[in-house]
């Protein structure tokens, strides 16, 4: 019956958020912009984007033959007849980022290491050079002054999926961290306004005087905080998916194919975000309840941000399966599991339970701190 207190507090807190445009922007727009920008930047830096332009020049008029064989696999390359000078001219003019010159006895690779796009194109150029060396009966190729080994001596064990997963690993790690930091930053702001702010604005006594138990009031505040943080996380994840669909269509299509059509990935993302939401709410509710001045609470909130960052970075220096059981740390391995369509729900649920336990502990401690406030 008294759960209506919780609902009234939630409705009131949501109203406060709606009346604070800055809070709404922080909650909804900033995660989207950050993640979209980051997705683009990461794709750009990792070289899995289609931003670069490259060309293969054939001195012996074999462009048509090479295009027929290689164009499907290397869509960012054009195949032309010409020599080294033609290629350099196009690079100087900025029309292409990198060029492969197929000569009588060797294949040369021309690129500009000072240009990001040119560097990004280098990897694919090396691959295409290797393929060309086979196609053109084992010619050697050069990277500027350096002699490359012949193709037959290069043994690359990685598959295209391995390469993609490596990219996803890096992308998920960074995007995850940004999404978590956004969620934590929102939690910090909401906690400062809704929990510490009650004491700072001297509205706390009016609440204490109500017959509604303090723990119900705090629960209402925590639940709406969770809803708002979860919403910002959902916005961040949607932006990450949109970012990948926009900037890296080929990889996105491969991931969609691998992740499967059963929609389990949506459930995994929801479980992951719920665990983060609960953990972050637990941390910042406790910090918010411990202080009666937002300035002091903000100082200690930095410690909360450090906890979130460290948890998000755990998979980079902890390679055991244990990370799959730790809220926030389980993000990157779980995203990889989605890409492989090899989803394990037990670790996800354990992480969720750990977060729920943290939330309960935080609520008990925070209620105690609130009850002592009047003293």
């Amino acid at each position, binding site marked *: 019956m008294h759960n*209506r*207190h919780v609902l*009234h*507090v939630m409705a*009131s807190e949501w*109203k*406060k958020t709606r*009346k*604070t445009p800055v809070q709404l922007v922080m909650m909804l727009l900033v995660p989207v912009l950050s993640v979209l920008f980051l997705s683009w930047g990461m794709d750009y830096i990792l070289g899995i984007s289609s931003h670069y332009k490259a060309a293969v020049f054939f001195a012996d008029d074999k462009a048509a033959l090479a295009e027929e064989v290689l164009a499907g696999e290397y869509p960012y390359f054009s195949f032309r007849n010409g020599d080294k000078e033609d290629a350099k001219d196009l690079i100087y003019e900025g029309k292409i980022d990198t060029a492969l010159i197929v000569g009588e006895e060797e294949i040369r690779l021309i690129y500009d290491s000072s240009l990001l796009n040119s560097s990004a194109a280098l990897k694919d150029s090396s691959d295409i050079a290797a393929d060309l060396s086979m196609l053109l009966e084992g010619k050697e190729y050069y990277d500027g002054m350096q002699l490359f080994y012949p193709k037959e001596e290069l043994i690359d064990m990685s598959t295209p999926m391995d390469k993609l997963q490596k990219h996803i690993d890096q992308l998920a790690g960074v995007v995850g961290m940004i999404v978590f930091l956004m969620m934590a930053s929102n939690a910090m702001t909401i906690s400062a306004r809704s929990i510490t702010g009650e004491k700072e*604005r*001297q*509205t706390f*006594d*009016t*609440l*204490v*005087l*109500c*017959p*509604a*138990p303090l723990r119900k*009031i705090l629960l209402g505040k925590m639940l709406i905080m969770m809803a708002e943080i979860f919403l910002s996380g959902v916005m961040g994840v949607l932006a990450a998916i949109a970012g990948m669909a926009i900037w890296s269509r080929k990889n996105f299509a491969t991931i969609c194919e691998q992740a499967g059509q059963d929609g389990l990935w949506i459930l995994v993302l929801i479980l992951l975000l719920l665990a983060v939401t609960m953990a972050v709410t637990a941390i910042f509710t406790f910090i918010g309840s411990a202080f009666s001045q937002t300035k002091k609470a903000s100082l200690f909130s930095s410690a909360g941000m450090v906890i979130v960052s460290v948890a998000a970075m755990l998979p980079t220096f902890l390679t055991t399966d244990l990370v799959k059981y730790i809220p926030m740390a389980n993000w990157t391995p779980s995203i990889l599991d989605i890409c492989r369509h090899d989803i394990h729900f037990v670790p996800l649920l354990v992480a969720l339970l750990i977060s729920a336990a943290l939330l309960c502990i935080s609520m008990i401690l925070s209620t105690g701190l609130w009850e002592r406030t*009047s*003293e």
Partner: protein
Amino acid sequence: MITIEHLKKTFKKNKVEAVKDVSLEIHDGQIFALLGPNGAGKTTTMRMLSTLLDPTAGTIRYDGKLLEQSDVDIRRRIAFLTNEIRLDGQFTPDELADYYGRLYEMTKEQIEKNRDKLFDYFGISEFRDRRYETFSTGMKQKTSLAICLLHDPDTIIFDEPTNGLDILTQHLIEEYLLRLKSEGKCIILSTHILDLVSRMADRVGVIVDGKSVFCGTVEELPQAQGVNTLEEAFIKLYKENHEEKAIVGK
């Protein structure tokens, strides 16, 4: 009736003994004024009466019921207002009434009825759609008063209710307090303004250095001290009971 017996409060944090021994008797349908110099322990006593603070020792009974055993029920029956109490600045008076009314478990109809009555009396109706944070001090105080009284409490505890308010607002609040008294409510005021006490209060309690030194009717106070005015009586009581603290150093 509220009975306070040997009330004591020591703050653990700074080990200050704010209230040492306060015993008072407050009757229904009367205005009780709590008098005392600054730092005497009036506010701490009021905060204990309103359930905001737990006493270190002693008892408070509302109609015979111990406060610590039925604090939630007592909260439904009391209102507490001080100059320090604020409301959420982002909300309008209407929204505040709705929020606090629901926390006091009132029905929508009760909220609307009481809100309209109070808003009309205090002249808040014309500002009901404006944010509380945009109000002047007087408007804020009137809105806080209206919100505190929304649940129609039996006991109203006011810590210096007219401090910093203009004459018109003071008059409006005093009128309303008298109206509440006529409805049989119990009103406890803490104030420095002796004129307000002589005009409005039925009974008076005096606290000096955390101890209650007088509790009786307004007329009894000067008589008991053998003087003519409340002011003289208060000063005499203070001088007789104040413990001069030794000043260390120069």
